[in-house]
């Protein structure tokens, strides 16, 4: 059963309690930056009085997990996308690839890690809710099963059509995410990119990666074929030359 978080931007009051709870959970210092960074795995960003809390979207088909060469990212069966720093080699392709720009890096450390929200995986496994959800006094974050959260979001839109922009962000974006957003306006006006495809981004690399085994087989066969033909051609030419020589010699001898 997959869990997720529904974030209702119309309810957020900008108290930053989620940021504090998150910092506590990770043992991070509390900052006033209100920006995702290696010490902030959730951040409430102020868009002219509209508070948008950001955190890892926990994609259904995570781009980071597809991009990582060593499989340091993993989509768990409970929903969270988790990261294993002991596998990581620090290529930062996950940061480059993530359509939501979530993974951050410890640039100043000699043994740096990628940092991001893990939806408090350990707490979920123990049957608790994530720290930020627990801390929210305005119920702007709801934790639950993804299917039920979608139903809840639809209910809210239907009951208050004048409050909500009728779109559940995360339902389809980048192939669907476990973190869902409701707002009074399109999320593109609140710092999210407008040109996000509705398919998992890994689809674009899969199309070419799936051609590799075939290429190795046919390419290898073709190269060996060309080699065999050119080699054979050389041999034949050499034989023909020899034959010619022999014929000419024969002629000479006959002429004598």
């Amino acid at each position, binding site marked *: 059963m997959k869990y997720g978080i529904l974030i209702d931007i119309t309810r957020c009051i900008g108290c930053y309690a989620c940021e504090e709870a998150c910092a506590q959970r990770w043992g991070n210092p509390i900052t006033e930056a209100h920006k995702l960074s290696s010490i902030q795995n959730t951040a409430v960003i102020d868009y002219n009085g509209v508070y948008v809390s950001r955190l890892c979207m926990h994609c259904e088909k995570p781009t980071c997990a597809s991009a990582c060469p060593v499989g340091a990212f993993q989509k768990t069966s409970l929903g969270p996308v988790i990261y294993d720093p002991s596998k990581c080699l620090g290529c930062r392709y996950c940061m480059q690839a993530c359509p939501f720009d979530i993974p951050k890096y410890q640039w100043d450390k000699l043994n740096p890690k990628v940092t991001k929200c893990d939806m408090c995986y350990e707490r979920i496994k123990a049957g608790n809710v994530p720290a930020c959800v627990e801390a929210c006094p305005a119920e702007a974050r709801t934790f639950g099963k993804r299917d039920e959260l979608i139903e809840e979001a639809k209910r809210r839109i239907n009951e208050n059509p004048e409050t909500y922009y009728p779109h559940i962000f995360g339902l389809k974006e980048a192939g669907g995410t476990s973190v869902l957003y409701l707002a009074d306006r399109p999320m593109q006006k609140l710092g999210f990119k407008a040109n996000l495809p509705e398919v998992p*981004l890994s689809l674009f690399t899969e199309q070419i990666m799936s051609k*590799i085994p075939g290429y190795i087989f046919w390419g290898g066969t073709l190269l060996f074929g060309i080699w065999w033909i050119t080699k054979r051609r050389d041999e034949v030419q050499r034989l023909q030359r020899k034959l010619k020589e022999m014929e000419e010699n024969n002629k000479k001898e006959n002429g004598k």
Partner: protein
Amino acid sequence: MKIKIPKLTFWSSVFWIIVALGIYSTILRFTKGLGAVTNLSDEFPWGLWIGFDVLCGVGLAAGGFVIAAAVYIFNLEEYKSILPSAILTAFLGYLLVIIALLFDLGKPWNIWHPIIMWNPESVMFEVAWCVMLYTTVLALEFSPFIFQKFKLEKPQKIIKSLTIPLVVAGVILSTLHQSSLGSLYLIVPEKLYPIWYSSNLPYLFFLSAVAVGPAMVTIESYLSSRAFKREIEIHILSKLAKVTAVALMVYLVLKIQDIIKYNLFSYIFTLNYEAIMFWIEFAFGVILPIILLANSRIRSSKKGLFIAQLITVLGFILNRLNVSITALENYTQANYFPKWTEITVTLFMVALGFALFRFIAKHLPIFPPEVSEKRKLLTEGFEVISIKEVFKEQT
């Protein structure tokens, strides 16, 4: 005993300055971390080291597989004389790419992880494996010269019997990862500036690598002819220039196809940073080399050929930097420009490449004996340019 004091010429003093700055930056990198020596950030995680050292480094080493394929697969024996230096250039190129990666990776001691931790879905995983395997192939392809030097006959025989499978593996691996460096960017359609995003990226990367491989071989031959006072095998190099020209022509067709398919006219005909960078890359890196290299008079002149191929190489470098840096500036708004320590590490890698090539070329028989070459050429009716003339042209 006489002690020789080496002459400190211009280039060698440049070399030692770069080495000194490079060592300083290296110490800083491994004691203070990436943040202290680079302008990389959460917004801009890949910079000059990926854009130049890795993307360009791998591409510029493409001469190895192009020439090896010509000699062994297509049986074009005439290229045999430049094969050793092409293989050496490629091998050193890949070694330097791996060294540069040790700088760029956050946890360089985990660089071997892809060997046991697999994610076959990842383009980066494929690149890692191909680079590892191809560097091994290049080492084996180059090993006969070491065996020859130390007169080890048995391993020489073993390698010789493996030549064709090695070359085939090398060509397959090269094709795969040259193109995969382009595939890396397929996953960011929403981030890359439209001028450079295309589902053809892997093919464009492969074609430009095929074009730039012979160009690098030409430049390397020209420079080593000056350094080692050898003659230039101009008849071979001018034939190689056709390979570059044809690869660039196919590239041009694909690129025009992209411009039409993705309807890029509004992007390339506006006056902004990206459009200007695109036109410099396109005009000087693709169209100009095609015009120059299609001209048989330029192809058969040493200097003309050198300059034309140098333009090809510079255009190639600009293309890789455009894809990896310029194309991401608009999305990230990071205004990335490399820190001076990033630049010195990159120069350090280039300088190391030159020094290693020079050292190995001096001590191993990578250039065929010149006398026989000259005789062969004379019998074939080719003009042989003496080294004195090369220098006459310089002054």
